[in-house]
């Protein structure tokens, strides 16, 4: 019965499902894990780096993208879809700066990305974007934020969350180990993110890419953070 309702995106099933959107969420679950943690003065994004072929240059595989100086995004799902969304979000960030003379707030750009995603769940001839994203950053008044968007076009704010493969396991780990007092310390936040990722990533710091942003500093994508942290991870 379900088969006849999943052809077109613009058709509901009798029990109220949009199957194409749900299948998009399945595509997300196949993507590599990403975790985000929001501290008091720091936000951290960590992604699992999938193992790549020997001859492939791993610097060209970027799963954490800067949308502006104060906002960055990690995704899980179809990389090509993410490219389109990230490009539009980048243009919107600059357009906002031009018109309003202020950098975007994290909530604003999340809302924009979600609106794009929702539009694609309601037009004919198009399929939804197969990505979930974690958007972190600081507003210009200094408050940190972490938002998650889904292929359906909804978004929610989180203190810590994970998307992609084994997201459930990671989220359970985060729920167990997240402590409000710990979020004051920058190192505790980073440790929590790394530990959470290590639950599902093959052991070793080589498979983790971390991005850190502190209040009043622009994002530091620790591309080769694993050099620095491989020792710490061992300790952790």
């Amino acid at each position, binding site marked *: 019965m379900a088969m006849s309702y999943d052809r077109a995106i613009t058709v509901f099933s009798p029990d109220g499902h949009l199957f194409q959107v749900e299948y998009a969420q399945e595509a997300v679950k196949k993507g590599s894990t990403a975790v985000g943690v929001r501290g008091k003065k720091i936000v951290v994004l960590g992604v699992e780096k999938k193992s790549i072929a020997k001859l492939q240059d791993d610097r060209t595989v970027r799963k954490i993208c800067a949308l502006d100086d104060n906002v960055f995004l990690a995704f899980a799902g179809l990389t090509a879809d993410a490219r389109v969304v990230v490009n539009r979000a980048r243009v919107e960030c600059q357009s906002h700066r031009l*018109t*309003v003379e202020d950098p975007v*707030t994290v909530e*604003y750009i999340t809302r924009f990305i979600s609106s*794009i995603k929702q*539009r694609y769940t309601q037009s*004919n001839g198009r399929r939804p974007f197969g990505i979930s994203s974690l958007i972190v950053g600081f507003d210009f008044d200094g408050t940190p934020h972490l938002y998650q968007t889904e292929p359906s076009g909804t978004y929610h704010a989180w203190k810590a969350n994970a998307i992609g493969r084994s997201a459930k396991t990671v989220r359970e780990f985060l729920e167990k180990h997240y402590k409000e007092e710990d979020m004051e310390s920058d190192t505790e936040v980073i440790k929590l993110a790394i530990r959470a990722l290590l639950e599902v990533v093959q052991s070793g710091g080589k498979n983790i890419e971390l991005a850190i942003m502190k209040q009043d500093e622009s994002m530091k994508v620790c591309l080769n953070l694993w050099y620095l942290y491989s020792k710490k991870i061992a300790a952790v």
Partner: protein
Amino acid sequence: MALFDVSGYKSHLELRGKTLGTGLRHFNFGTTNQEFAVPAGMDPSGFLKSCSHEGQGGVSIDLNHGTTTLAFKFRHGVIVAVDSRASAGSYIASKEANKVIEINPYLLGTMSGSAADCQYWERLLAKECRLYKLRNKKRISVSAASKLLSNMMLGYRGMGLSMGSMIIGWDNKGPGLYYVDDNGTRLSGQMFSTGCGNSYAYGVIDSGYREDMTVEEAYELGRRGITHATHRDAYSGGVVNLYHMQEDGWIKVCKEDVSELIHRYRKGMF
């Protein structure tokens, strides 16, 4: 459909949608889609010129920019003072026109130039400011509000709009004062005066301005500026509407008839 996207074909409905402004319009702040569609080949400003006394038609419809408005920043906020005469040529259409639009408790807009243009576009600006607040859950900044207005003006540049306005407000960057006009000029500054009486007003407020004035001194300076301008400029008059923009919003200070004010200042003059 997907094939249409690939081939670049735009269906009639999509084109109509673009001009009517559907889609993610609330992220463009209403500036990419124009309120009025102007037919190609029309030249409104040329047409207006031919109707004025400069044109050859023998017609003499002069749209005068009869007004004096002024605003200046000082230590305790921003003072806004406007006159209230609305003139159509040599006919005084109203002696109590309202030339300040209260956009919200933290934003004011003044009007000079064509009354119709000012009223329409500034009310449209008020609508956009309100929508911004509803969507983003915080008040629009003065720089964004003035940018919206100047973008609206730029959309119709060269088509004969006539508007010289100041946007005054207080946001988290402090007091804000912007001058926006129908050419799309947008300037931030400490002191502006617009309208055909502006030179008289500048003379008064330039000579009396000090950044560390008291509040009462600033009120008096604003009143004097308008009063002296209305004394000499035929197209300004009526009453002085004085506003003070403070950190927690604007207050209307007074509304005094210039013919009484000028007698007060005359004691020093004659």
